[in-house]
C-alpha cells in the first residue's frame, strides 16, 4: 500500500476547505475576509479547527494560506465594476446594517488586514485602492437613493 505524499495531502486539505467551508461563504471578498480571520494576528499562522482535525494542523495551515493567496489574487485582478458587485454581495450577506458597515469600512479600513503575507506591494496597494473606490461608489449610490426616496 502506498503512503500519500505531502503534496497529495495538501491538495486533499485544500479541496476539503473549498468544499466544506468556502463554498458556503458568498463571494470572493467575503472568502478573503473569512480566510484572513483564520490567521493569528501575532504569529501569522492560520488555524481551522475542523480542517486541523481531519488533516494535520500544519497541513490545514498551508491549505488555508494557499486558498487565501489564490482568492486574494483573483479578487485583486477584478475590474472596479466587479469589485463593487463583490462588495454588494458582502454587504447583503452581512447581519449588520449596510450603512454602518460602509461607514466603518471607510473609517477603519479593516480590509487591510485581509492582505496575505509577502504579497506584492503594488498588487496590495491596488486592492486597497480599488476597495476605497468601491466603498465611495456604494456610498454615493446610497446617498442618491436616500435623496430619491426622501423627495
Amino acid at each position, binding site marked *: 500500500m502506498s503512503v500519500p505524499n505531502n503534496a497529495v495531502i495538501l491538495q486533499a486539505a485544500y479541496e476539503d476547505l473549498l468544499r466544506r467551508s468556502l463554498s458556503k461563504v458568498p463571494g470572493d471578498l467575503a472568502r478573503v475576509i473569512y480566510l484572513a480571520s483564520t490567521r493569528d494576528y501575532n504569529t501569522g499562522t492560520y488555524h481551522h479547527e475542523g480542517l486541523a482535525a481531519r488533516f494535520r494542523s500544519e497541513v490545514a495551515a498551508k491549505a488555508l494560506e494557499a486558498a487565501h493567496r489564490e482568492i486574494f*489574487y483573483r479578487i*485583486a*485582478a477584478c*475590474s*472596479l*465594476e466587479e469589485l463593487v458587485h463583490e462588495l454588494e454581495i458582502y454587504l447583503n450577506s452581512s447581519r449588520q446594517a449596510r450603512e454602518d458597515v460602509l461607514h466603518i469600512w471607510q473609517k477603519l479600513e479593516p480590509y487591510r488586514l485581509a492582505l496575505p503575507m*509577502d*504579497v*506584492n*506591494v*503594488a*498588487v496590495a*496597494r*491596488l486592492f486597497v*485602492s*480599488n476597495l*476605497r*473606490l468601491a466603498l*465611495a*461608489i456604494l456610498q*454615493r449610490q446610497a446617498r442618491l437613493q436616500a435623496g430619491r426616496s426622501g423627495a
Partner: protein
Amino acid sequence: MMALSSLIVGVVLLLLLLAVAVKGSLALRETPELAGSDESGQEACPPEFVSKIFSHDDWSYVRGMKSTGLEKLFRKERKSVALVWVRQTSSGIRRIMREHAAAARQSSNLEPPTELKIFLQFAALLMTCGAMRAGIHVAGPLWVGGLARFAQNLVQQVAEAERAFELATREHEMDAMSSL
C-alpha cells in the same frame, strides 16, 4: 539668438523635470504605507496587474457615473498605485544591476560588447522609469500604459539575461576548477 532660446528652453525643461521629481518624492513621503514598505522577500508583480493599473477600463466605468468627486478620487488613487509600481520596478532594476555587477566582478571571461549592451538596457530602463514618473505626475497613469508594458517586458528580458549570465559564469568557473 537661436542658441540662447534653445538653452532657455532646455533649462526650463530641466527645472520642470526637477520639480516633478521633487513633487514625486514628497508625495511618497506623505504616504507612509508606501515609503515604509519592505519589498524584500515579496512576490513579483504579475504582468496582468501592470495592464490593470494603467488600463482605461476602470476609468470609463467611473466616468460613466458622472461624479466629479469620484473621478478626482479615482485619479488620486490610481496615480498613487502607479507610482508604487514604478518605484518597485526601479528598485528591482537596481537590484538586478547590483547582482550583475557582483557576478561580473567574479567573472574571468567578460565580453565588453555584451557588457555594454547590458549597461545600455539598464540605462534605458532607468530612463523609462524616470519618464513614467514624470508622465504620471503630469498627465496621469492612463497615459503611460505603453511605457509601463515596455518597461515590464524589458525588465523580464534583463532578468532572464542576468540569470543566464550567472549560470554561464558558474559553469565557466566549474570548468576551470575541474581542469586544474
